[in-house]
């Protein structure tokens, strides 16, 4: 007897590769998805009875392909193929298929499946649900819950996204190295979006949105297994793991944000941190720095510090400087200012961020950081002004509440 739970895990694990291969055969997303679904139904019946096949993914691709061909033939009123019970006993066939899907093909299949979800015409609000539906295989209900919308609204959103990426636009040719690198970068960016969609949620929404972070980590691991020598993919994986490791320490019992420096580091997930640190160490040996690696190197310095006081702010300042040069952005400069304040004092940090005010005039964190710096050098009136602007721009109640505690401490002075 086998256990329904491992079958479930095997089906989830096989999905990206199986749907990717079926998409290559049938060149139609709906047919590929239906073929996989059909194979899963048969797997539940067959595996429970006969135990696990040697290669569950190959089995699913083989059975899925045959059942879809069967449907196509039946529609053409031709002879159907032999029943699946007979097919699935053909051990030799299964092995042949397994050999066929090894190697480069399967990587391109999965990458293609992920890449069609990042179609430039699709806004992020459609890319993410589409990826979660067709690559991760989450149900529409699960996705709707994670996005805090109704099931029918989510169903519509996914259908609309699918129709936008018409079959004619799916890039089926094997990508050349440049094309492959571009796809990889687009997919990495989408995975980071999925993660942030979950990670930026308020405490009250955390429970519903945590699956987004978990899925993003599962997808980046998948990508990493396909491209185990890509330093930026290692960097992205490390970044997600190191950030996610802090989840349990990020909110207090009232749902208010606890800043990194004030978090109880005992609540950080050591296993995730260890994996993240291992990955960033590996990535840096390649000497091909990129934005994900630098951001994860910064996260790694926080993770390595036993206490907030022991944080290596000097190195963090240097890393933010490198990130600024790589992709200049006022938000990165703002983050750097936090490190600069530690290393060279709040006045130096203030000098750094003041030129950004115009570009960040609608950005909550800018006024939060500015208020904090002004408060530290005793310019309380200006600090109050900055905090008031921050509250007006707060995205969540928790953000506003956090700023209010600063205002309260100012009025006690």
């Amino acid at each position: 007897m086998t256990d329904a739970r491992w079958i479930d895990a095997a089906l989830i694990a096989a999905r990206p590769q199986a749907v990717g291969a079926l998409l290559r055969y049938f060149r139609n997303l709906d047919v590929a998805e239906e073929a996989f679904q059909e194979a899963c139904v048969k797997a539940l019946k067959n595996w429970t009875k006969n135990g696990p096949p040697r290669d569950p993914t190959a089995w699913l691709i083989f059975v899925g392909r045959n059942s879809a061909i069967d449907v196509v033939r039946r529609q053409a009123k031709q002879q159907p193929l032999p029943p699946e019970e007979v097919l699935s006993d053909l051990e030799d066939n299964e092995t042949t298929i397994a050999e066929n899907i090894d190697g480069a093909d399967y990587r391109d299949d999965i990458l293609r499946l992920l890449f069609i979800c990042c179609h430039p015409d699709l806004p992020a609000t459609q890319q993410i649900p589409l990826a979660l539906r067709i690559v991760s295989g989450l149900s529409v209900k699960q996705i709707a819950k994670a996005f805090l919308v109704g099931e029918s609204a989510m169903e519509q959103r996914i259908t609309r996204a699918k129709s936008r990426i018409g079959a004619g636009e799916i890039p089926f040719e094997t990508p050349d190295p440049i094309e492959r690198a571009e796809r990889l970068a687009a997919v990495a960016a989408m995975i980071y979006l999925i993660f942030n969609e979950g990670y930026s949620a308020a405490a009250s929404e955390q429970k519903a949105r945590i699956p987004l972070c978990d899925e993003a980590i599962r997808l980046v691991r998948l990508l990493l297994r396909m491209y185990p020598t890509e330093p930026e993919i290692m960097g992205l994986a490390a970044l997600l793991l190191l950030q996610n490791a802090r989840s349990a320490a990020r909110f207090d019992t009232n749902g208010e944000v606890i800043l990194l420096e004030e978090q109880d580091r005992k609540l950080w997930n050591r296993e995730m941190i260890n994996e993240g640190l291992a990955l960033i160490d590996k990535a840096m040996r390649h000497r091909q720095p990129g934005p994900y690696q630098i951001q994860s190197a910064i996260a790694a310095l926080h993770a390595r510090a036993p206490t907030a006081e022991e944080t290596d702010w000097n190195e963090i300042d240097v890393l933010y400087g490198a990130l600024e040069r790589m992709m200049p952005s006022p938000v990165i400069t703002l983050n750097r200012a936090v490190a600069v304040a530690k290393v060279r004092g709040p006045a130096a940090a203030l000098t750094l961020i003041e030129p950004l005010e115009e570009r960040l005039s609608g950005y909550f964190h800018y006024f939060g950081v500015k208020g904090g710096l002004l408060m530290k050098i005793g310019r309380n009136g200006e600090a109050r002004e900055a905090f008031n602007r921050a509250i007006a721009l707060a995205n969540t109640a928790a953000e506003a509440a956090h700023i209010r505690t600063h205002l309260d401490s100012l009025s006690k002075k």
Partner: protein
Amino acid sequence: MLYAILCYNSEDIVGAWSKDEDDAVMARLAIVQERLTREGKLGPVARLLPTTAATTLRKSGNDPVIIDGPFAETKEQFLGFYVVDCASLDEALDIAKELSIANPGTGSYEIRPISIFRPGQTKP
């Protein structure tokens, strides 16, 4: 005699376990481990991080080659091990059977007699 029980499974499948499922498997394995500990039969136990976190140093004269991860395109990966003290192979196999009942599905256990064993000690 000391045996190593080497655990192999598909990383993809183990990685698809939900946190609840992972916790449940670990809890079932812990019951087996506790009994073995009481019987004085259990040595070191380790669960390894994914192979993507691994690095390989290949000896090559004075200039070893360092590569990312184990590259072998195998269906199952080396994910952890137990060291057990058993009177016979049959007893070691019984332990592996118990582990497989606690953690059913795909994968395999390689039972390998140990030649030299130094338990060692790392700083607490």
